[in-house]
């Protein structure tokens, strides 16, 4: 890495400068990692890799061709030695990502976020090398520092804290299951720190917990959407920001139109007109947090109508619980017209291939109840392990981290290590992250771009972009053992280092033995005998067929026994904190996800599917409320909870559920590069500190807020301001 200290990258040079620099002194070329004879202009090379824009683990193919940039380096020529010279550097560059057709998650397809992740690789705001805090913590003033020194300082600090209180070293990361999180876990173990905690609003803890409680399954259940005929999805925006959007969208396409004579029918119950609700044939607008009641009502009606052929497989206690529900109260709680609800359930029950798909796109205090209820209904319908039903997850090639109690961990922490987590953005103000970051003795970040939390670090040891280094990712949902693998095929742009290598260096500095596991080491015990590792690397991963020794045989009806008692299954009403008349419902933006992609201009400029907003995200207000409060689209409004307030532009959403204020995540970054810093507001900021009790996950939908109009504003920028296809003037 010291070798690369030789050159520093010009931050101001633009493509135009490159283009017009022909014939000037910068025309000299230096060959670096990729010898130019291997890089013929106009020839494309495809390398498999993995998308890390979200934890789905889509296998991708990267199109690599030649690129050019201008670098500055210290001359080694005798006559000019020591002086900096500007050189044009030809290098292999990633031009585009496509889904890897051999990958079972992406199947050759890719979502908007995946497409845009090249832009995080070539983001102008990436950190060029290690940075050390030079001002007061949180002021985000840094100065460059060499890797050698940075590692020395960091390991010194960690060593000191380890000696005093190793259990107070908090490692905070994201929900991914990959070689990077695995290395973090190994490092934590090696230095005696607690297991890393997950800081994310998209870790799908409720889905995992419910599968464990109801079906005794470890991992996220796999829904066989393709082979279902009638799907009732509840609370899961599975085409938008849910577990594996590409995979489920692929399945959805096939579900709808891949079979002759059969067209899948989708009914969707959610408290928001999400893109799944839009794609559905029927949308049942739920009151927030009433998914559990809704599903209980569904089960009860199915039983009443004798449309639950496999009811016998459901434990008697659970059946009794369903039969004992006060149906009228349940229906009233959902806010849906009874006739409509009954019709929807009857349609489901009478279908030849019914499937209930439930999740918690918006997390409530009873989300686990709701998903357990869905599993029970699927049991009644005979869907467990059946084609067109819900399939058990395969053994995860890499176990994801699941402990979501990052706020507690941070509040105790003497040393904080941040990787792929931005707790200052993801956690509400009421979680007191800022205080924890101020109080901690040492804050270390591996951020690639200076984000809200990295701004509070003492040292930033920037990681390679995931496309620059070797990586293996276990997909978040799969019915077979799978691993997506990416190699290092482009030269790192800057003085960055892969996180496992950094951790190894830190461990060495702390005199701790720690060797991060390579993708090969992880994969080899799982590989079928006839599948050599070279093939896995060439194909970008593997997807082991069932029946192979490494794959656990699908348990037949494991579920029936798993639902231990009716006590684990009850329908608790969702709890809401605060006293405003509206419910705030932050949701994962189909473009910016949980805000971790807000620094990508392609995504900022991709219109929000609901409001068509670009470079801004509004709060969605229903027309009746808006009229009552005199709010028009584009007005600035104030959302006020018990713990704080934010000012955001309003969008009058014709499909918003009255009383619910939905808002996509992505805005409100204090620090996140030129494309995101200071843009919009973050609804997570004002959430109450409510948790889903079974998982400890932050309940994102549990906050009541007040809404007041501030006045006209200019913050809502819409790509298309027209909501209706027909213009009002069209007819006399």
């Amino acid at each position, binding site marked *: 890495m010291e070798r690369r200290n030789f050159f520093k990258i010009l931050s101001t040079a633009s493509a135009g400068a490159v283009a017009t620099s*022909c014939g000037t002194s910068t025309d*000299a*070329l230096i*060959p670096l990692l990729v010898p130019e*004879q291997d890089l*013929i202009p*106009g020839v494309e090379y495809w390398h498999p890799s993995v998308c890390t824009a979200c934890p789905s683990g889509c296998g991708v193919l990267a199109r690599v061709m030649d690129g050019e940039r201008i670098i500055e380096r210290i001359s080694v020529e005798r006559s000019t030695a020591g002086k900096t010279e500007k050189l044009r550097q030809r290098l292999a560059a990633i031009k585009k990502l496509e889904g890897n057709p051999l990958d079972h998650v992406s199947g050759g397809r890719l979502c908007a976020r995946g497409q845009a992740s090249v832009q995080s690789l070539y983001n102008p705001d990436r950190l060029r090398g290690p940075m050390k805090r030079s001002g007061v913590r949180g002021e985000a003033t840094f100065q460059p520092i060499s890797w050698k020194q940075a590692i020395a300082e960091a390991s010194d600090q960690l060593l000191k804290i380890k000696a005093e209180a190793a259990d107070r070293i908090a490692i905070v990361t994201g929900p991914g299951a990959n070689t990077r999180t695995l290395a973090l876990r190994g490092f934590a173990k090696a230095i005696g720190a607690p297991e890393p905690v997950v800081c994310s609003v998209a870790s799908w803890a409720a889905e995992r917990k419910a599968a464990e409680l109801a079906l005794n399954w470890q991992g996220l259940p796999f829904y066989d959407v393709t082979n279902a005929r009638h799907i009732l999805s509840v609370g899961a925006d599975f085409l938008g920001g849910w577990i594996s959007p590409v995979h489920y969208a692929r399945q959805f396409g096939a579900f709808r139109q891949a079979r002759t004579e059969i067209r899948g029918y989708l009914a969707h119950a959610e408290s928001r007109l999400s893109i799944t609700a839009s794609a559905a044939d029927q949308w049942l607008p739920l009151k927030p947090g009433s998914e559990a009641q809704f599903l209980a009502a569904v089960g009860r009606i199915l039983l009443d109508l004798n449309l639950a052929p496999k009811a016998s497989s459901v434990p008697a206690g659970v059946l009794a619980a369903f039969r004992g529900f006060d149906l009228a109260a349940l229906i009233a709680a959902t806010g849906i017209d009874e006739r409509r609800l009954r019709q929807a359930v009857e349609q489901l029950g009478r279908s030849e291939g019914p499937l209930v798909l439930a999740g918690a796109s918006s997390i409530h205090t009873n989300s686990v109840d709701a998903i357990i209820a869905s599993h029970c209904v699927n049991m009644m319908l005979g869907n467990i392990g059946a084609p067109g039903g819900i399939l058990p997850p395969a053994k995860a090639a890499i176990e994801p981290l699941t402990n979501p109690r990052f706020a507690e961990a941070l509040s105790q922490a003497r040393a904080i290590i941040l990787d792929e987590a931005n707790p200052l953005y993801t956690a509400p103000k009421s979680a007191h992250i800022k205080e924890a970051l101020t109080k901690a003795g040492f804050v270390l970040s591996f951020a690639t771009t200076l984000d809200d939390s990295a701004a509070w670090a003492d040292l930033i040891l920037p990681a390679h972009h995931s496309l620059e280094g070797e990586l293996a990712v276990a997909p978040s949902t799969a019915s077979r053992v799978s691993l997506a693998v990416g190699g290092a095929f482009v030269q790192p742009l800057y003085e960055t280092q892969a996180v496992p290598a950094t951790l190894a260096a830190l461990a060495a500095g702390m005199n701790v033995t720690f060797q991060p596991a390579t993708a090969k080491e992880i994969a080899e015990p799982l590989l079928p005998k006839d599948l050599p590792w070279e093939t896995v690397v060439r194909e970008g991963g593997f997807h082991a067929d069932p029946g192979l020794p490494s794959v656990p045989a699908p348990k037949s009806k494991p579920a029936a026994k798993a639902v231990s008692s009716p006590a684990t299954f009850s329908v608790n009403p969702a709890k809401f904190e605060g006293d405003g008349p509206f419910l705030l419902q932050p949701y994962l933006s189909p473009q910016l996800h949980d805000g971790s992609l807000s620094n990508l201009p392609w995504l900022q400029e991709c219109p929000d599917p609901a409001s068509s907003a670009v470079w801004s995200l509004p709060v969605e207000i229903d027309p009746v409320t808006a009229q009552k409060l005199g709010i028009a689209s584009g007005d600035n409004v104030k959302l006020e909870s018990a713990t704080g307030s934010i000012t955001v532009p309003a969008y009058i959403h014709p499909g918003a559920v009255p009383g619910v204020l939905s808002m996509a995540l992505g805005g409100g970054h204090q620090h996140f590069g030129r494309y995101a810093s200071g843009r919009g507001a973050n609804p997570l900021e004002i959430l109450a500190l409510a948790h889903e009790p079974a998982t400890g996950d932050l309940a994102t939908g549990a906050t009541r807020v007040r809404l007041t109009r501030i006045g006209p504003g200019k913050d809502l920028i819409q790509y298309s301001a027209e909501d209706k296809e027909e213009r009002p003037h069209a007819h006399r």
Partner: protein
Amino acid sequence: MKLHFLLFLAVTVSVPAVRAEQPILFPHSTHINKVHLKCIDCHISADTRDAATIPGIRKCMLCHAKVATDKPEIKKLAAIAASGREIPWQRVYGFEKAAAVKFRHGPHARHKVPCATCHGDMPNAITAQPLVKHNMGTCITCHRQNNASDDCATCHY
């Protein structure tokens, strides 16, 4: 944009063929006539790929580490090689970015267009200089004569 405006102002002035000042006087004639190298020995992808490619300095040094090391131009070459840089060759053929041309050598070679059609008499060229003046008219005339497509999108996209 500014640049284009200036181009417009200068439009009536006919631009003479660029006489590139090459960093090293590379005699094509010596390499072709005396050493009997073929074009594609150095321009390795001229017959198959889009770009013909200009050989890198390592290719030069394959021979010139030993051959003719006493000549002044080869000494220059050796010096550049030692500095870890490439030779800053001036491209003599090419299209300005504004022309939006996607030229592919491959199809031309496949359809047996001799190199000399566009590059002139390189075997007798003393230095790397443009011998043939290229403009859109030359391309189109040749395309039409050979019944190749004269659809704009053949080259411009």
